[in-house]
């Protein structure tokens, strides 16, 4: 078993679609997929056109790059202007617009910006450039944060003193709770993020049941997503609201205790600002005091600035599932993947970017 092809079986997919149709019985159901990787998987698998029309799939705030505020980008841009500083970043961050520039534009202007696949590569860049200061742009959900925690520990272990983190981590459950508490949201159930859940497990989502919202933690292949939708519909039919796990081959109820322990050794929960959604209590991670020497904010005395949102951009409402990209005056005109205006266009996993590519 290779865990990919088996979950792409065309005949099983078509049978599940029929099953979904019969479970629906003609009634309309709105389901939000929280994770951007799901948004992309749904488009790539052609599931939107396959599913019966009464199913409405809404994309939530699920891409950590999209929700990184301009104030964070402005700090990264300011750091790249400094002498002997190398910025190391995941590739998705390159085009995210700050107030006046982006990392892509900074690189074109000759600043030292390197794209890495793993935070450990950023650490190696620091080790190989002892006369430079290397700042890693530490963004990501709970899937990514533990990998950065290990990298921080590794920096200490290897005695690398020119490596710093600019913390922009985001936590999914507080953002989800803030969305649900917001009376505007009209959804009947959630497809919950599979890979975030390998780390945090089931417990952080249990509040969804209190709001009467059926939820299923899903994998990313077409069969996973279709089975997940089936499970949500079954809960609705049986008037249950539980957090179920479809993606049981990698998600355990308790999550990854080892990863959570390492994460909490290095980081502490903090309030955090989300592009398009605003500040959300307890929705981020910052370095603990004991790791202050790694904190780019402290070492470079960076100041927080106010984030600017573009006039007319409806990303906030798109991230809440209230509007779709085609309803935005910027979409496909002044806002395209190569020069994005708003949060949802900046990463390839953003809702607008997905609609632009496949819509």
């Amino acid at each position: 078993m290779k865990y990919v092809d088996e979950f792409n079986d065309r005949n099983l997919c078509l049978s599940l679609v029929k099953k979904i149709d019969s479970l629906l019985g003609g009634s309309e159901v709105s389901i939000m997929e929280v994770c951007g990787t799901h948004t992309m998987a749904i488009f790539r698998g052609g599931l939107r056109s396959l599913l019966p029309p009464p199913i409405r799939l809404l994309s939530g705030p699920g891409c950590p790059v999209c929700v990184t505020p301009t104030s964070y980008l402005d700090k990264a841009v300011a750091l790249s202007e400094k002498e002997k500083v190398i910025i190391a970043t995941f590739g998705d961050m390159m085009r995210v617009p700050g107030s006046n520039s982006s990392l892509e534009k900074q690189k074109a202007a000759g600043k030292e910006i390197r794209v890495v696949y793993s935070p450990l590569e950023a650490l190696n860049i620091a080790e190989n450039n002892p006369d430079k200061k290397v700042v890693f742009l530490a963004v990501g959900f709970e899937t990514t944060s533990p990998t950065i925690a290990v990298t921080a520990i590794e920096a200490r272990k290897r005695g690398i003193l020119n490596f710093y983190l600019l913390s922009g981590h985001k936590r999914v459950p507080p953002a989800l709770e803030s969305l649900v508490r917001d009376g505007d949201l009209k959804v009947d159930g959630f497809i919950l993020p599979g890979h975030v859940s390998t780390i945090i497990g089931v417990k952080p989502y249990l509040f969804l049941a209190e709001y009467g919202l059926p939820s299923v933690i899903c994998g990313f292949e077409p069969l996973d997503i279709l089975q997940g939708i089936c499970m949500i519909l079954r809960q609705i039919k049986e008037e249950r609201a539980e957090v179920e796990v479809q993606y049981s081959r990698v998600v355990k109820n308790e999550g990854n205790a080892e990863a959570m322990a390492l994460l909490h050794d290095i980081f502490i929960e903090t309030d955090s600002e989300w592009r398009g959604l605003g500040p959300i209590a307890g929705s981020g991670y910052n370095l603990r005091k004991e790791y202050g020497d790694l904190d780019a904010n402290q070492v470079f005395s960076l100041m927080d600035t106010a984030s600017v949102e573009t006039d007319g951009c409806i990303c906030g409402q798109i991230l809440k599932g209230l509007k779709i990209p085609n309803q935005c005056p910027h979409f496909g005109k002044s806002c395209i993947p190569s020069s994005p205006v708003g949060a949802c266009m900046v990463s390839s996993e953003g809702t607008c970017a997905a609609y632009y590519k496949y819509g």
Partner: protein
Amino acid sequence: MCLGIPVRIEEIQREKGLVTLGNVRMEVNLTLLADDLAAGDYVLVHAGFAIAKVDEREARETISLIKGMIADEVCR
């Protein structure tokens, strides 16, 4: 951004696993997994780290649940 890929570990050297992704042979950091791992196991890889062990029994059960769901009206 939260992309994770199931890959087979070919060899283990302390906290590192050697894997082949496409045609590229690469190292995967295993620090985040407390599971006992052996060559031949599949792990889910994200940003150069194994973040979960893939459970073959659960994968087979999911497929059979899907088939059951289609066949006899059971949606787990």
